[in-house]
């Protein structure tokens, strides 16, 4: 099987995946997509049988996946999964519709609507961008005065998706850690706690969180796998919280980063992900 791993910024993960693919005996190549040009839809045999999409830029990744799928190639993850995961509103809807516990979420389409939604949710709540990662611009809003200031700042943004539209989510009281599960198909490859660094409430590894391995119980396993299935499946990073009331999934990541998780577990994550790619391509 010929596998292509596409990237636009070569991180540890892409190199590890490439090494794992070669170790598994696959004909694998890493392709920097930035210099590519596509006439669509036209066959691109140089990409082989399957493409593992690992671009760090969501929009580049999304358009490239569409072009590759248009050429008849199988891409992991598919453009449908990528779109659901990259848009937090779409993720919330997919999780809720599948019966996966997820925080109460509201969409507002104007500054006035945002104030109304804030009152409806009650303070504190979490204001998030629709698209984005690593916890950037994710804010706990603790009172009305702060919300009014945030609305003023948001209205000045140049990004039309984030300028007048608001994604508000229930604030979940949890320990200063969350759960990151690396999922491939219907298997949980690794599961870690991400512990927030001192002075930071967000638990992103990019913000300095430390990963610690743990064994998920039966209930958590089922929730993680249901969340992955809800967004369409593939190679995913499911993020969950553990308030006293039970597990809650707040995000599913499409181009999952696993350097932090790998530092905490013995399982060879890239090798397991490549195994899934090879197996699913044979189906």
């Amino acid at each position, binding site marked *: 099987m010929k596998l292509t791993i596409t990237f*636009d910024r070569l991180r540890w993960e892409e*190199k590890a995946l490439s090494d794992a693919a070669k170790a598994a005996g696959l004909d694998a190549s890493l392709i920097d997509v930035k210099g590519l040009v596509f006439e669509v839809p036209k066959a691109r045999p140089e990409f082989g049988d399957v493409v593992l999409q690992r671009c760090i*830029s969501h929009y580049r990744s999304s358009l490239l996946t569409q072009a590759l799928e248009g050429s008849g190639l199988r891409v992991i993850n598919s453009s449908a999964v990528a779109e659901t995961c990259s848009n937090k509103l779409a993720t919330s809807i997919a999780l809720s519709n599948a019966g996966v516990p997820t925080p109460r979420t509201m969409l507002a389409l104007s500054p006035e609507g945002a104030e109304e939604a804030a009152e409806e949710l009650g303070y504190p709540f979490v204001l998030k961008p629709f698209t984005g990662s690593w916890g950037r611009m994710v804010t706990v809003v603790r009172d009305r005065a702060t919300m009014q200031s945030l609305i003023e700042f948001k209205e000045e943004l140049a990004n039309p998706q984030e300028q007048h539209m608001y994604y508000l989510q229930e604030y979940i009281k949890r320990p200063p850690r969350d759960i990151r599960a690396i999922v491939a198909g219907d298997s949980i490859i690794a599961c870690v706690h991400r512990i927030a660094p001192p002075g930071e409430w967000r638990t992103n590894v*990019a913000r300095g969180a430390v990963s610690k391995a743990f064994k998920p119980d039966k209930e958590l396993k089922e929730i993680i796998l249901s969340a992955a299935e809800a967004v369409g499946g593939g190679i995913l990073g499911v993020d969950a919280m553990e308030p006293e009331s039970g597990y809650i999934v707040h995000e599913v*990541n499409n181009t999952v980063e696993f350097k932090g998780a790998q530092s905490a577990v013995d399982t060879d994550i890239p090798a397991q992900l490549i195994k899934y790619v090879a197996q699913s391509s044979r189906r």
Partner: protein
Amino acid sequence: MNTSCKECGAALTVPNDAIAGEIVSCKDCSTEYEVAEISNGNVLLKPAEQVGEDWGE
């Protein structure tokens, strides 16, 4: 492989096992470069893309 930072002029060492696409940063000024090409032990760098709003998982 040795080269220098185009921003501050400091010496910049690129690991011998680096491959095209890899990111290296200047230890003095933190400017990031992407390895554009490696041939005959010579490395060609280009400025790395800056973090985008849509970057990440």
